[in-house]
């Protein structure tokens, strides 16, 4: 029913103000409105703009096929709104309610306009339902996508945040490791460290694992590989930040770092590195 005989546009246009007022009332009463995140006047502005865009789109006669070009302004507006809401911290329900709370006000007007003709009313309500559902689902989908986008960006940021290589002294690098060492992160850590050893011409690299909550065989294996690779490039690695509970666990697990120098704290490791490089601090 692309070019439907629906009077939806007619009814919306005629009752724009009443629908907006009712819709606002619905939203304010819904209990899902986040007054801490959006002010009433802002919400009213958004609602009025959306309703205006919907009326424009329905004027074409296409009232349910939202993939049509006449609906593009509406979809663009909804996409932008749900994106902002996702970033502001609205929940999915709160975001979808923005659309779904429009149903009741529209239905009320339809009922009034269609009068006692039940079959016309049923048809009009069906059209309006299909339309609001489609718009609501579109909003939910965009919201979801924006959230995933945010999560992906944070993951990337974390990945980079957690692998800084610090040149703490001439010829001495420190790599503080924080969090879980899964394979992809370890790969980045290893590459960054080895590249920095070359770039800064460093002879000693301190790998500090104070921020690693548990050292299991996989983490140990990754560390051993990194140390071996650094050694091949002529750099000595010191592993520091081995806390008592980690040390005990590693002993039971049977993991040994072989002849790699290990220290309890970063300070001890630094002291050792200074001695090795013949640096005295007075």
């Amino acid at each position, binding site marked *: 029913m692309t070019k439907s005989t629906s009077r939806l546009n007619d009814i919306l246009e005629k009752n724009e103000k009443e629908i907006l007022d009712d819709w606002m009332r619905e939203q304010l009463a819904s209990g899902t409105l986040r007054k801490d995140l959006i002010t009433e006047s802002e919400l009213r502005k958004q609602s009025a703009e959306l309703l205006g865009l919907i009326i424009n789109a329905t004027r074409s006669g296409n009232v349910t096929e939202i993939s049509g070009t006449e609906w593009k302004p509406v979809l663009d507006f909804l996409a932008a709104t749900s994106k902002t809401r996702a970033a502001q911290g609205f929940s999915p329900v709160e975001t979808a309610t923005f659309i779904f709370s429009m149903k009741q006000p529209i239905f009320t007007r339809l009922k009034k306009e269609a009068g006692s003709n039940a079959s016309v009313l049923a048809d009009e309500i069906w059209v309006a339902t299909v339309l609001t559902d489609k718009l609501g689902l579109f909003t939910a989908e965009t919201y979801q996508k924006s959230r995933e986008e945010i999560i992906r960006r944070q993951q990337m940021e974390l990945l980079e945040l957690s692998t800084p290589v610090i040149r703490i002294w001439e010829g001495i690098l420190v790599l503080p490791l924080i969090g*879980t060492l*899964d*394979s992809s992160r370890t790969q980045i850590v290893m590459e960054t460290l080895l590249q920095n050893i070359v770039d800064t011409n460093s002879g000693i690299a301190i790998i500090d694992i104070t921020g690693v*909550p*548990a*050292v*299991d*065989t*996989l983490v*140990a*294996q990754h560390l051993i590989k990194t140390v071996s690779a650094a050694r091949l490039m002529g750099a000595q690695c010191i592993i520091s930040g081995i806390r*008592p*509970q*980690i040390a*005990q*666990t590693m002993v*039971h*697990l*049977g*993991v040994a770092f072989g002849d790699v120098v290990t220290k309890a704290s970063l300070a001890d490791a630094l002291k050792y590195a200074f001695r090795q490089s013949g640096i005295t601090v007075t």
Partner: protein
Amino acid sequence: MSLPGPETLELKTSEDVVRARQRVRVCMKDQGFGLVDQTKMVTATSELARNAVDYGLGGTMRIESLEEMGRIGIRLVFLDHGPGIPDIDLALTDGYTSGHGLGLGLGGSKRLVNEFEIWSKPDEGTRVTITRWR
């Protein structure tokens, strides 16, 4: 003290291993385990959960709080329906691995806990049960 009911976690990806580890840590903390006990159990969880993901084609971890004769304990059951372990004694030997690891995970986990039980049948799967008492 009331004990939380048992719960089961899916183990499919390496993110699930991290999630399982965090769950075990929280659970142990709630039951009043010390830092050393927590770290030991979490490390064992890491090994066994990763075995289930890497070798067992994915599985589940059941976590259960226990109270027996005044003792508080945590029991974990790792279950997978993978190819199974043909020779359990060999698999428990330090340094033996069928993959690319250090070959310490299974034997090491056994040393990290108070009770260790392993059942495995070729083509049926593997079940490892570990318990740590406070």
